[in-house]
């Protein structure tokens, strides 16, 4: 686990800094080094963190196969042989066949695309929407802060799964995009709250105050001084959320309102497999897509954990 690697701090903070050779006075031009050294230090830590390396490689692999599933699966996920329904794993068909007689291995490989797309797009939407709303509220302050914060509260007040089910069951569209849309529309408040908080903190930093006193323009302050500091918590939160969004897609599909066949997705396959008593006769049809999904979620959560530990100087 990444957490346990952060050693207990033996000395007072100053003494640690001294021991590491980071004594004050070596730092020049604090306004740039503050942000840059945070990222360089984090990168230095991450490169040596096995949890990060493993999860990053896994995610890279998943992204590659969701772009080019043909690389490792030569069959067509939609061409099924009903005659081989529920047949167990065998040579050439390592994961066996599902109820429809489709090759589970091929479907598991092709299923990555839907899950990864939902996860990435929803996270992108959440991060952009949340960071813009929260960032503006924190930066402008005053009336707009109140208004945007209340708006955030309104969306925060709707439980995620509940709101998603209601929305998806009411619209007639199906496919990936409504799922992405509803997840993004209901999850951005968390990011908004975090980025509002960190923008306000960053604004109060001495060096930002100093830049303001020196007459730096608003846009320059936002870009050069506030964003670099506010963006770290957003990235951490977004990475962890990405994993939970992938799991959420599966849950929505299980409830019959997410993705639906003929879309190939882990959620669709898992919900088909966890239905009824099939589990006793053919556990493989649940096992493989569920394992693929869990591994993906795990990879993103661990990545988020590792990045958080690297970026959080408190835990160093």
């Amino acid at each position: 686990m990444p957490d346990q690697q952060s050693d207990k701090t033996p000395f007072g903070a100053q003494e640690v800094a001294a021991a590491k050779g980071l004594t004050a006075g070596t730092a020049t031009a604090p306004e740039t080094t503050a942000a840059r050294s945070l990222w360089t230090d984090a990168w230095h830590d991450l490169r040596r963190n096995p949890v990060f390396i493993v999860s990053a490689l896994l995610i890279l692999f998943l992204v590659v196969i969701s772009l080019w599933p043909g690389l490792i699966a030569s069959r067509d996920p939609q061409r099924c042989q009903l005659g081989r329904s529920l047949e167990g794993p065998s040579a050439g068909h390592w994961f066996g066949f599902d109820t429809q007689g489709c090759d589970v291995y091929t479907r598991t490989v092709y299923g990555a695309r839907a899950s990864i797309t939902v996860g990435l797009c929803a996270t992108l939407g959440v991060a952009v929407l949340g960071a813009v709303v929260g960032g503006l509220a924190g930066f402008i302050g005053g009336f707009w802060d109140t208004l945007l914060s209340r708006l955030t509260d309104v969306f925060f007040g709707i439980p995620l799964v509940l709101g998603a089910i209601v929305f998806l069951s009411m619209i007639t569209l199906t496919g990936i995009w409504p799922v992405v849309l509803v997840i993004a529309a209901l999850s951005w408040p968390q990011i908004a709250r975090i980025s509002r908080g960190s923008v306000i903190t960053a604004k109060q930093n001495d060096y930002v105050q100093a830049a303001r006193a020196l007459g730096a323009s608003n846009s320059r302050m936002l870009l050069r001084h506030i964003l670099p500091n506010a963006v770290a918590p957003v990235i951490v939160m977004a990475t962890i959320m990405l994993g939970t969004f992938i799991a959420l897609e599966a849950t929505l599909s299980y409830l019959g309102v997410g993705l639906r066949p003929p879309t190939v997705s882990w959620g669709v396959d898992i919900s088909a497999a966890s239905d009824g008593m099939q589990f006793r006769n053919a556990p493989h049809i649940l096992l493989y897509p569920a394992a693929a999904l869990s591994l993906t979620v795990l990879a993103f959560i661990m990545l988020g954990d590792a990045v958080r530990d690297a970026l959080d100087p408190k835990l160093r």
Partner: protein
Amino acid sequence: MGRYVIRRLLQMIPVFIGATFLIFVMVYALGDPVSALFGDRGPDPATAKALREEFNLDHPLWQQYLLYMGKIFSGDFGTAFNGQPVTELMERAFPISFRLALVALTFEIVLGIVLGVVTGLRRGRSLDTTVLILTLVVIAVPTFVLGTTGQFFLGVEAGWIDPAVSPDARLDELIVPGLILALVSLAYVTRLTRTSVAENTRADYIRTAIAKGLPRRRVTVRHLLRNSLIPVVTYLGADIGTLMAGAIVTERIFNIQGVGYQLYQGILRQNSPTVVGFVVVLVLIFLLANLLVDLLYAVLDPRIRYA
């Protein structure tokens, strides 16, 4: 303190209106509540007209919303898909879901906090690593997979529990479903407690407590835990709302006729009064739980109380 509560309650009103309006728009503007009632058969025009009037569908949306909320506050939630008033469904469903949430919360408090404290105090040991890996697995594997396989092994194979919960949903029947419902939050509570305990062991005031010559037990219980559990307690408070609203999957797996189950039926049958009615109450519970969290925070942490 009193003024703080009142201010927070007043702040809740616009949020409640906004959230319920959003749900209302989703259901009444995106769906067609009347034709949904008739399913695939086309509605008889006369009946349809009467229904449109009953739902105030001829008015602009915001008026519909106001009229609907007016009815709700006079206790009229409309008629459910089976012809019963929605309020009757609620009277049956909410106590069941509440019991389920209570079982889940108990698991979170007892198991989550104990595991979190133990691992937080013994960071890096094998027990710590094992528990951490377990929490990650629980978070990563979707609840419905854990639920269905758990139901299969414990209910069908081992025969320890009934795979389906009876309509009464007795407390003993809810133990396994409650555990399944709790699992994800349980994992988060464990991790949160662990982090919080581990961070606080390094705090200056813990060093002071040791320097005072206090026995280790007293240092741990009075000084370390008292501080470390503040974020955990607030997480648990907020979780009450999530547990009530998020039990849809668990209730579906175990056939528990609680809030999630009824809501799901309402959605399947496109019965707008059921859906909106239940969701409005759930939003209210969710908001009240969040208010409770803020108040708990103020009670537990004097720095906020007097601020």
